[in-house]
């Protein structure tokens, strides 16, 4: 017995369903193109717990201020590595694109020089 026509078509649709592009594909393309990257989406994550004084105690002002400052400092410290990583990533993308462009330019130059030599050889042979 064999799959009837309709089932075969269904199975073909299932078999040939689109598969996801490899991870990082879009970034690689944009890096090679030197195109602007999409704005990074805000990272989803647990919202920082709002600092509130406990109802049964009232934090002294200085301690509260210190706690807030500490929280702000931690938030800044958390962002800096991400920014550094992002900048490094962009720099790497630019560098890889530059490398690719350079190799392309040198390949074209090499091919032109080789073709020029070949033309000379060919023409010299014809004359002889």
């Amino acid at each position, binding site marked *: 017995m064999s799959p009837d026509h309709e089932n075969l078509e269904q199975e073909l649709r299932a078999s040939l369903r689109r598969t996801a592009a490899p991870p990082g594909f879009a970034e690689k393309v944009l890096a090679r193109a030197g195109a602007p990257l999409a704005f990074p989406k805000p990272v989803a994550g647990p919202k920082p717990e709002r600092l509130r004084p406990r109802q049964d105690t009232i934090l002294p002002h200085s301690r509260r201020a210190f706690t807030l400052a500490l929280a702000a400092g931690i938030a800044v410290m958390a962002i800096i590595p991400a920014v550094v990583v992002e900048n490094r990533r962009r720099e790497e993308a*630019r*560098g*890889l694109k*530059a*490398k*690719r*462009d*350079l*190799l*392309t*330019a*040198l*390949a*074209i*130059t*090499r*091919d*032109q*020089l*080789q*073709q*020029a*030599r070949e*033309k*000379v050889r*060919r*023409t*010299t042979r*014809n*004359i002889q």
Partner: protein
Amino acid sequence: MKPTLKTLSISAMALCVSMAAAPALLAQDFDFKSLDKLSANATSSTNLTLSAATLQLAAGFLGNDNDKDAAAIKNLVNNLKGIYIRAYEFDKPNEYSESDLAPLRALLKPPKWTTILDVRDHKDWTQVFFAEAENNKLEGVAVVSTEPTSLTVVYIDGELNRSDLEKLSGNMGIPDLKGLTGGKLADPKADNKTDKKSGK
């Protein structure tokens, strides 16, 4: 079949003393962007303008110095100020004219430039030019190659050794062009139903 037209002239290497090391000014005198209009009729085009900063950036990503080829390429680009490439392919002749190249050819003349190679075969014409510096070095190399359905201009600005150029004419570990561009270059008419195949 014997060709109907054969013209060959190979100029001798210039023995004249070069001018005091003045930078090759082609990039300042000639606007490569003036060739960009040719891409409008091209079936494929390559347009590369690599500044000194870009070249240095690229060199940093070439690989470590233990790799001979990487080291050779780094050495080549070390003193370069720029590389300019304009390459176009057309699906039929007469999509560009000599007048498009006349301003460029007018600049590639003595005393700054020496024609090292000048080969004509049928309607193909290839010229290689050197801008000579002191100490047997070069301060610029230009290649202008025209065929009925293609046109390539290469200009390397900056100091390089003749031996570097020899190596470049060899391989130097540079990947085949197809490996870099995936085959034929871009087709600007991919969306035109009446034109040839897209993406080729």
